[in-house]
């Protein structure tokens, strides 16, 4: 069974922006899936369409086997959504926000009460249950939206940048929590994030979307082995660098260190040779740990180059 199936999905907004240019995507049940892509790639648009918040231009979407056009209610019943922007009534107390959404999903009050307590406790918001939502901090608001999305215990949980603006500690507990419901309740999870090290260590499958198209898709391990490129981080003695030395792409990072991409099978000596010829001294070298991020950056860069040539 697939939790989500998307075929040839397109969206052109009223203003004429073509946000999705025909994407195909399939997410198996029980998966922990990351949808990655730069700002404006179309991630939130795709999520909006899946959750019926955005009207699609064309294509098909089905959730747990229910087509969102033909069996809209059944599809919606299986989705829990944590949107990118806050969308709750700021004057409403935390507890009644979650209770109301349980009601909208047809859950009787007695059951809704128990579930609300359970999820607010799980997300460390129980103390705040009487507080109006506007009194919550940014990270608490995100957690409130997670509790709200889970109260009807959906099979598919979609989170649009759940860790944006959340501190490291909470981010870690949030990931642990998501991993737990994925393992224990079998909830399929789809999320978007700009923290690629998280996606690399936690997600099973990944799709990378850029400019309204899916440019890569597969398991994290597949993608990394397909990348055929190793990235090294160098301590260099220069504050400006050429874009290339020999055949190797070179990037200066914000912290003053340099990154160099080396195709697999090429001897590292050649990199040093090229660097020496350009008069660059390297004082230390290490492997880039966040390999998915390196892959992502290269992929998006090469897309941009192709785009500017076309």
């Amino acid at each position, binding site marked *: 069974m697939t939790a989500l199936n998307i075929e040839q999905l397109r969206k052109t*907004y009223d203003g004429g922006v073509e946000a999705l240019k025909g994407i195909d995507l399939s997410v198996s049940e029980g998966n922990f899936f990351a949808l990655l892509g730069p700002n404006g790639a179309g991630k939130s648009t795709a999520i*909006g369409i899946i*959750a*019926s*918040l*955005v*009207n699609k231009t064309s294509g098909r979407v089905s959730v747990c086997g229910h087509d969102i056009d033909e069996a*809209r*209610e*059944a599809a*919606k*019943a299986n*989705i829990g*959504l944590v*949107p990118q*922007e*806050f*969308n*709750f*009534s*700021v004057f409403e107390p935390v507890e*009644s926000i979650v209770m*109301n*959404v349980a*009601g*909208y*999903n*047809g*859950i*009787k009050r007695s059951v809704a009460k128990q579930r609300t307590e359970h999820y607010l406790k799980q997300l460390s918001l129980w103390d705040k249950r009487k507080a109006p939502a506007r009194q919550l901090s940014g990270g608490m608001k995100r957690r409130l939206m997670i509790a*709200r999305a889970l109260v009807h215990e959906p099979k598919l949980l979609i989170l649009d940048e759940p860790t944006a603006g959340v501190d490291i500690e909470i981010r870690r507990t949030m990931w642990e929590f998501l991993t737990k419901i994925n393992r224990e309740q079998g909830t399929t999870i789809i999320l978007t994030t700009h923290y690629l090290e998280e996606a690399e260590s936690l997600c099973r499958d990944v799709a990378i979307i850029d400019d309204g198209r899916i440019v890569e898709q597969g398991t994290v391990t597949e993608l990394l082995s397909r990348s055929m490129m190793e990235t090294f981080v160098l301590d260099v003695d220069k504050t400006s660098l050429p874009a290339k030395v020999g055949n190797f792409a070179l990037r200066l990072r914000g912290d003053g260190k340099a990154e160099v991409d080396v195709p697999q099978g090429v001897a590292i000596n050649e990199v040093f040779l090229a660097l020496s010829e350009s008069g660059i001294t390297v004082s230390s070298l290490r492997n880039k740990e966040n390999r998915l991020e390196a892959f992502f950056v290269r992929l998006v860069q090469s897309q941009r180059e192709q785009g500017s040539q076309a």
Partner: protein
Amino acid sequence: MIERLIVERVAFATIVRKEIRRFMRIWVQTITPPAINAILYMIIFGGLIGSRIREMDGVPYMDFIVPGIIMMGIIINSYANVSSSMFSAKMQFFIEELIVAPVSNFTILAGFIVGGVARGLAVGLLVSVVAFFFTDLSPLHPFITLSIAILTSIMFSLGGFLNALFAKTFDDISIIPNFVLTPLTYLGGIFYSITMLPDFWQGVSKLNPVLYMINGFRFGILGASDIPLWQSYAVILLFIVALGGLCLSLLNRGAGIKR
């Protein structure tokens, strides 16, 4: 199938409860001003000026204006409740909580409308209680009185919903009440019988839908009306079907709420 009905029923009850709690929480803003207005009308028009007029359509002037004043409260408040509730749900985006839930658009609409009717009737009841201090009226035809009140409240709640769907700013939800609703209500024969008007203006008045509601309601209370009762029901029902249909088709297309 039964399961679906249960979901719709629970969702409906949730929306209604939330809507009623919303206006009860801010009752000073939502329930008391119309009562104060009504007191002023009854003192000024009914008491001070009315004492010079004595009778209209064969009933004491105070008794003549009371049904219209109650109706005005119902009309304005039903409209205001739904337009402001729906519009703030749109502006703060929490309408999305309902859009992503497995609830039919009919249930969403019905929930908001029942909320508006609750506010309209609450105000109507309060104004009626106030009216007891000025005159001892009791409805001659309770069923007609109540049914006209509820149907009118439904109609203007639908109007408020429609307004909120189209509104982009807070100004957009005050334009219609100020420039359309209030004039139509005043010209709908609250304070005078249209039989007093020249033929031409009687004809023009009959184009005003509010006239049919106020007269239908007045018939329920006093047994006197400028309009045949069936016409009152026909006009209100026609508007309910038209406005309700429009609201639903807009909701189904996602107009004003989806991107």
